[in-house]
């Protein structure tokens, strides 16, 4: 079981690595810089640990509210110590809620 688990972890990490690489490429293009593969690898490791932290936080936030499904309120709680981050996430949540509210019409604002 642990062997299968390990390969699962590896595959997940590879998938994350790929997407981290893309996001880093995008940011680098905006700034006109380059990143070494080692930089991307380290950042993937960092994101991996961050996922570990936030997944457990989110789970416990939901549990604390007597829910078994993580909601956007729990995600917003992640950013409680950083008002700027909270504002940005709130915007995403609001947009998402608005999109859901008028899902019948295909027209969407930017």
């Amino acid at each position, binding site marked *: 079981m642990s062997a299968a688990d390990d390969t699962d972890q590896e595959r997940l990490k590879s*998938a994350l690595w790929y997407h981290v690489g893309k*996001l880093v490429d*995008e940011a680098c293009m905006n700034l006109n810089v380059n990143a070494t593969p080692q930089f991307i690898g*380290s*950042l993937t490791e960092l994101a991996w640990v961050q*996922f570990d932290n936030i997944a457990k936080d989110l*789970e416990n936030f939901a549990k604390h509210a007597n829910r078994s499904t993580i*909601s956007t309120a729990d995600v917003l709680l992640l950013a409680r110590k950083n008002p700027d981050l909270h504002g*940005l996430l709130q915007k*995403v949540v609001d947009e998402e809620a608005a999109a859901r509210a008028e899902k019948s019409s295909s027209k969407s604002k930017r």
Partner: protein
Amino acid sequence: MPPKRPSKATEEDSSNRRPREPTNAARDEPDNEQEERKLTIPPELLAKLLKNFMEDEGTKISGAATKTVGKYMHLFLTEAVYRAVSNRRDGDPWSRTNAGLMLEVEDLEKITPQLLLDF
């Protein structure tokens, strides 16, 4: 990633997510705002990663919450790059002399503590 579509008109009205695993051959340059905004970690991967780290099998996550986590990680990763460059360039990530700048692991090491405190 989504293959390049020929017309911008189709781009405008379709805000659908592309769930499929990208092939590494696909290499699209963001040539406008719309394309840039689409570049995120796919929700399926986010959900799998979160599930992977959770202790209780029964915990679920809503679609909107997954999307918000996606934004969170997008900000986290982008912020890491900007801070790394900013750190090398004395607080000015858009410095003119950026061309040819290579980000190294040491750059990430320097900004990691504060980054983790801010997220």
